[in-house]
């Protein structure tokens, strides 16, 4: 199977869906670039080149550059979705949700319910998240737990290029508003990605490692850290199952609970801040449903309760990594029930 980067996989999903369905349009800031400028058209193809070439293939009618006006154009995407188009809007960094959140959580997310089931809002919002880019406090956050909290929204967190393509195609074909989270540190990561279009259903986790001792549930980029940790641990004689839920909303509770029950030990890995995040969500789920099967308390590996620091020296300490996951696994294995430090 051909290897493609996360970036290429996303570009390919957009292209194939735009070819298949002319109601699919994309919009965002400089997703082509060069609007009104004397130089090259399609000068950027998005700030990180993700949408490069789409404008040349589909034209400016379907690939819309926007002014810097997120509340306006994200809201316009919501309105267009509710009236017959299938827009994919790019919110460059998820941190910019602050300027347009109302249109997402009060408008798009609630139409279906508030209007008694009459509205259909097939909207996809692609957005970049995550630390590791030395991009500091306003360009590095995760924030997917905030969207996961909102009924009516679906939230996808692809952990590799294969998932990126399949989940994005599903998002575009889905009739509900979907937040699609791309980790900015993964765009160059390559994976086997089929050429033909395929959709990965929402709410179906992937089990990326199978083991008997500990179940590691990890989200987005953290799946790769968890895999690395599991491989290191295997050499030390500890065998881990790694679960990649792929979407946080809906969440594949069954796979999480079944694998957790098998091992009886659970570590949850989430790059978000430690309060009210996916790790606390999964820990609560496990504690509530299979308490009796647990051999040790659930451990959470997350970022700390502070904004993302700029200095590389601090950011490296901030981000969860394989070593921290391994330490947590050893803890649940040894039965040390240390009280978590805040």
């Amino acid at each position, binding site marked *: 199977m051909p290897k493609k980067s996360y970036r290429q996989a996303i570009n390919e999903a957009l292209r194939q869906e735009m070819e298949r369905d002319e109601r699919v349009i994309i919009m965002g800031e400089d997703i082509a670039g060069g609007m009104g400028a*004397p130089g090259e058209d399609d*000068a950027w193809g998005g700030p990180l080149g993700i949408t490069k070439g789409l404008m040349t293939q589909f034209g400016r009618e379907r690939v819309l550059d926007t002014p810097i006006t997120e509340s*306006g154009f994200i809201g316009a995407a919501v309105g267009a979705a509710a009236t017959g188009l299938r827009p994919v809007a790019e919110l460059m960094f998820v941190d910019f949700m602050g300027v347009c959140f109302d249109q997402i959580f009060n408008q798009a997310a609630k139409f279906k319910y508030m209007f008694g089931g009459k509205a259909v809002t097939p909207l996809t919002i692609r957005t970049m998240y995550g630390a590791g880019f*030395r991009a*500091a406090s306003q360009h590095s956050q995760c924030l997917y737990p905030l969207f996961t909290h909102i009924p009516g929204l679906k939230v996808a967190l692809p952990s590799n290029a294969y998932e990126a393509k399949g989940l994005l195609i599903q998002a575009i074909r889905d009739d509900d508003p979907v937040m699609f989270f791309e980790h900015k540190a993964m765009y160059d990561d390559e994976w086997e990605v089929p050429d033909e279009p395929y959709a990965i259903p929402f709410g179906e986790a992937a089990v990326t490692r199978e083991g008997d001792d500990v179940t590691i549930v990890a989200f987005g980029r953290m799946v790769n850290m968890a895999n690395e940790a599991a491989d290191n641990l295997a050499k030390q004689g500890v065998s881990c199952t790694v679960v990649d839920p792929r979407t946080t909303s809906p969440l594949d509770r069954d796979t999480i609970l079944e694998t957790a029950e098998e091992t009886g030990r659970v570590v949850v890995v989430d790059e978000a801040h430690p309060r009210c995040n996916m790790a606390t969500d999964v820990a609560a789920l496990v504690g509530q449903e299979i308490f009796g099967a647990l051999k040790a308390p659930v451990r959470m590996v997350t970022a700390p309760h502070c904004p993302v620091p*700029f200095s590389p020296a601090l950011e490296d300490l901030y981000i969860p990594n394989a070593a921290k996951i391994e330490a947590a696994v050893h803890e649940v294995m040894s039965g040390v029930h240390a009280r978590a430090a805040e």
Partner: protein
Amino acid sequence: MQLSRDDLLNAYKRMRLIREFEDALHEEFSAGNIPGFVHLYAGEEASGVGVCMHLDDRDAIASTHRGHGHCIAKGCDERAMMSEIYGRADGLCGGKGGSMHIADLSKGMMGANGIVGGGPPLICGAALSAKQRKTGGVAVAFVGDGASNQGTTFESYNLAKVWNLPAIFVVEDNGYAEATASAWSVSGSQAKRAAGFDIPAIEVDGHDFFAVWEAAREAIERAREGGGPTLIHCRLNRYYGHFEGDAVTYKAPGEVEKVKAEKDCLMLFRQRVTEAGLLDAEALDQADREAKARIDQCLSEAKAAPAPTEAALLTDVYTSAY
């Protein structure tokens, strides 16, 4: 109000210091020595300096992602700024903020900003604060042409007007927001937009320090006297890419070179003051050498400074006990 010889020399020194700072960072970034996102202000110095010359520590400014020039113009310490950009412990923000978040509240510098359109509402608050505390202070937001399209900016115009705030909006129109031309993205015009809110507007050539200085004088005087907000539309150019690493293929070939040759703000300033006999070339050359030496020193000290340690990770999240 007139510019004295000292004022003129200071203005030139500030602009030159900013240029040296930015040129040095451009080299350093290209060499891979600086992490993260860096947006350079080179070419736009006359705006920041022309405005901030009228301000003192009771006055607040809110900057943008392209903030180094505003910081230096408002009196931030360039040595501590340099360390901040390198993520060092002795940086102006302890290395926690970096290029996009340099701030010094004691100087009335409310921060560079990673959020386009983040600044205008903040200066409405700073202006309100100055007004209620009767400090005589004013507040200035620097607003990019791209940022001029944000809802937050329009809301701030309206708020500043209806509350009659000592607020000044300086639209730094460098023709582009990232790769998008303001000729396309900005409907109407900056001045007409201001007129829609009954806010007086002044249009100036932002390469011309004297034009900016004069417009800012008028706007700031009005604000200090209780006359409410003003919008200043400065047309200027940025010399480097949107961020360091941008190939700038959206501009016409030679576009920037032409501006540099014909309208460079330092060049225009030098011409003007030497022709009028206000400053001699030797004083300006001397200022050039001093700026270069100062930035070299800032660079070498910042590079040698230690990085923050783990103890800093969880400090500064809250002010009171948590």
